[in-house]
């Protein structure tokens, strides 16, 4: 049993989607995250265990490698694809409430900024960590963050900016969010940001990499 979960984790970490996928070359012809997840469900392993010890574990490993510059954007994308493919088999158990997501996160690139690669990577790692992620897109106004937060009731909000100029729009967005939801944790990230800047605009957390953002979220959920 442990063996199949470890295999699933490895498939997610390496980005082995299914048997037909040609990547990675050394796993060609072998079963991927897709088939192994289905097999694990059919063999009676609880879906939450498959999710935690297999899929989330695989994403945790790639997130860690990304943090250490041992993996790059394409590696995370292919891992997320493997996870998403496998998740098709797990989703029915969410719908029947047999397993629950860790919580809900709202994520978006701030007003004036059209860059979404960083935001998408962070979204993938957080989703890969067992959270539900609501992506509100790019060029998101303070109003849209607040309105979506009203309807979606997330546990935290993540703001992304790539440019120094658009990073300055974060302050206004944090203020608007905190004005309506004073206890809402707001995480900020993006190439030009620093912890110092995050503090100066009253954000709760700055993450230099996606994995740290996930760790922070898992921690707030824990302490809630």
């Amino acid at each position, binding site marked *: 049993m442990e063996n199949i979960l470890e295999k699933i984790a490895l498939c997610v970490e390496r980005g082995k989607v299914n048997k037909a996928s040609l990547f990675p070359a050394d796993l060609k012809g072998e079963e991927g995250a897709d088939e192994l997840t289905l097999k694990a469900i059919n063999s009676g392993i609880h879906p939450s265990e498959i999710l935690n010890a297999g899929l989330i574990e695989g994403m945790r490993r790639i997130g860690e490698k990304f943090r250490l*510059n041992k*993996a*790059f954007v*394409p590696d995370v*994308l292919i891992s997320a694809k493997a996870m998403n493919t496998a998740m098709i088999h797990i989703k029915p158990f969410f719908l029947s409430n047999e397993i629950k997501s860790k919580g809900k996160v709202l994520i978006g690139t701030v007003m004036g900024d*059209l860059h979404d690669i960083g935001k998408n990577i962070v979204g993938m790692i957080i989703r890969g960590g067992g959270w539900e992620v609501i992506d509100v897109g790019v*060029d998101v106004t303070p109003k849209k963050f607040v309105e979506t937060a009203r309807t979606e009731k997330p546990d935290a909000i993540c703001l992304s900016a790539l440019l120094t*100029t658009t990073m*300055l*729009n974060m302050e206004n967005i944090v203020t608007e969010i905190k004005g309506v939801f004073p206890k809402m944790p707001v995480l900020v990230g993006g190439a030009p940001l620093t912890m110092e800047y995050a503090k100066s605009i009253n954000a709760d957390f700055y993450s230099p990499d996606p994995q740290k953002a996930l760790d922070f979220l898992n921690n707030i959920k824990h302490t809630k």
Partner: protein
Amino acid sequence: MNRLSELLGIKKLLVCDGAWGTMLQNKGLKPGECPELLNLTYPKLVKEIPEAYSKAGAELVKTNSFGGNKYRLSHYSLERKIFEINKTAAEISKDGVKDKALILGSIGPSGVILMMGDTSEEEMYETYSIQASALEAGGADALLIETFSDIQEAIIAIKAAKDNTNLEIISTFTFEKTIDGDFKTMMGYTPTQICEEVEKAGIGYIGTNCGNGFEAMAYIIKEFKEKSELPLVVNANAGLPTIRDKGIYYPETPEYVSSIISKLVEAGASIIGGCCGTTPQHINEIRRVIDIMRSKC
């Protein structure tokens, strides 16, 4: 039509201009506005930038067309104006430099990732083809395919430029320093891998732009030099920006930058200019140092 290689052959070292985005912001471009639309709405304002850089001593001047592709322009519902925006960009720069500099038509990345399946290679090729043709039609002397991180996308842009124009092509990539001290693009590529893959696509110049400041560029250029015979290009940021008094501040001053130029030339760079945060004062200093170096050649 190889005006760039002719000029480099004569001068041996060339000075490129500096930042455009931060210059436009200083002139009133607001976050959220389309920088390239200013070519049509405020051409006089845009023209001040090539004028300033040419006066400061830049021998190569870029165009306000970095995001002039379908993916970025469609966000502002301007995807039908790709040709017009890019052609005008080249015309404005040409007009601004008054024959004192060559024009490099700027082509930035699409912002979409091919392997995500958000677009096709054909679609990407088409938009870069329109952009490259328009820049040539507007009077660009060469094309600068800059700030790329993905080899596959760069090759598509280069092929589009080669198939549709007679212009020489410069290809520059943006690197970050990894924990191990190597330089890699966001997509994980090293300068070595880029030389191996991208040179074959038929470029005349290779190099690096944006990044973490002038000094780090010397390491990247050294790696390029080991693998490539092509002339090497550096367009560096004035360091990593910080916030000061609610404004953005780039730490590397013109004086500091001028002290690094000899290191870049020693590492193998032959075209040197600036990216984000650099100003005509930076370019003026670079030109001063390059002039001294040229007089000693």
